[in-house]
């Protein structure tokens, strides 16, 4: 890897960017994600987490939580908001917004 190698292709985060984060005192994947934006794009870390782990090991960053992956969050698979909205309309628990809106004044 050179300093211009991309660690995160979704958000254009390079090795140099990650080195700057380490230099600033960020030594866990959670922190480097937030400082550089790596892992916040469409792949949500699927591509970039392993290259970052490799880099952190190369840089000698240690600590029990340094290489812990950032939190996995929904969605696990792609689903459109349209499909989710249709699911909601089939559910009686969720009022649909077009049915006589009741304002609440508190």
């Amino acid at each position, binding site marked *: 890897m050179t300093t211009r190698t991309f660690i995160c292709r979704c958000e254009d985060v390079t090795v140099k960017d990650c080195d700057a984060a380490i230099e600033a*005192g960020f030594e866990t994947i959670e922190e480097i994600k937030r400082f550089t934006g790596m892992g916040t794009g469409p792949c949500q870390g699927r591509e970039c987490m392993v290259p970052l782990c490799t880099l952190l090991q190369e840089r000698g960053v240690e600590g029990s939580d340094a290489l812990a992956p950032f939190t996995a969050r929904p969605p696990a698979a792609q*689903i*459109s*908001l349209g499909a*989710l909205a249709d699911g909601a309309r089939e559910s009686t*628990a969720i009022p649909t*917004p077009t049915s006589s809106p*009741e*304002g609440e004044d508190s």
Partner: protein
Amino acid sequence: MGRRDAPLPEAVDLAIIGGGVMGLATAYELSKRAPERRICVIEGSYLVSGASGRNGGGVRSQWGDAGNVAIMRESLAICRGLAQTLNINLWFRRGGYLFLARSDASAARLARNIAVHRSVGAPTEQLTAREAKELVPELDVSNVRAATFNSEDGVVFPWPFVWGYASEASARGVAIRTHTRVTGLGEARHAGHDGYDLTLHTGESLWARRVLNATGAWSPVLNEMLGIDLPNRPHRHEIISTEPLKPFLDPLVVDLDSGLYFSQSTRGEIVTGVTMHDVPGGEDDRVNLGTSLEFLERMAANLTAVLPLARALHPVRQWSGPYDISPTATPSSVALLDTPTSSRCVASRVMDS
């Protein structure tokens, strides 16, 4: 900026517990006014781990209380020059906030708000449904009865606020210690002054003349150590961001009847959430950062009704963050522990703000 190995003095004038935007902004502002003060910030995790790193980034003056409107206008005014002051890109975009009302009750609330806003000089305008659609042609306004718009409001990317305040405070001598939990807090005199002893999970301890509890929704834990029981509790709010689109949406839009809001970040994502009156999984006295399908479906149903093009959009991430809520929905969590001996009258200690 913060480090897990930042050295802490044995005694400080002010210990700020909580490395969120509130604690760090206070540290920065005080270090500018009083460079001789010894200030430290102690964060239990990393710097944007709390609500400061989990929110939708809205900054608006359109509130219901005149005092809140005035304070938020001041925040907006500070935000204008803050990127230069803090030397960091805050991604502050002033696209305004557009509120939509689909019921008479909500329309009445907007009308009342306009009067409140004007009383403190905020330029909120009343709009018709048609005018709202002119601002955002992609909206379905068929049920909209009234709208308000304030062009001063805007959105930010919340993380750089924290980095910016942390790095400028640090440059002014504030010690910022991360990944360090306060495990004990009690009154103690030192060199003839009243103050507090702090014990840290690392086994270290330090004395502080004053303590600022800036841990937001986590604040009851620290308050308990001093026997303080305030009625503020964490309230979980969920949020999603979608795949990015070309920029098309200027204002942050709020549908007052459902509590839906959505904006387009500078990165192009739609960032959106909706009010859940009952937090899925139940209320909890401790912070809960989970997510739910109930939220996702409710948000999707409401968003696609107001913004039909969103039907084709895919969420990229769903997360949550805590609001720190008091019974009057007013701030309570930034508690300043100040001069213990003078303060036994209420909640056993004086606390401000």
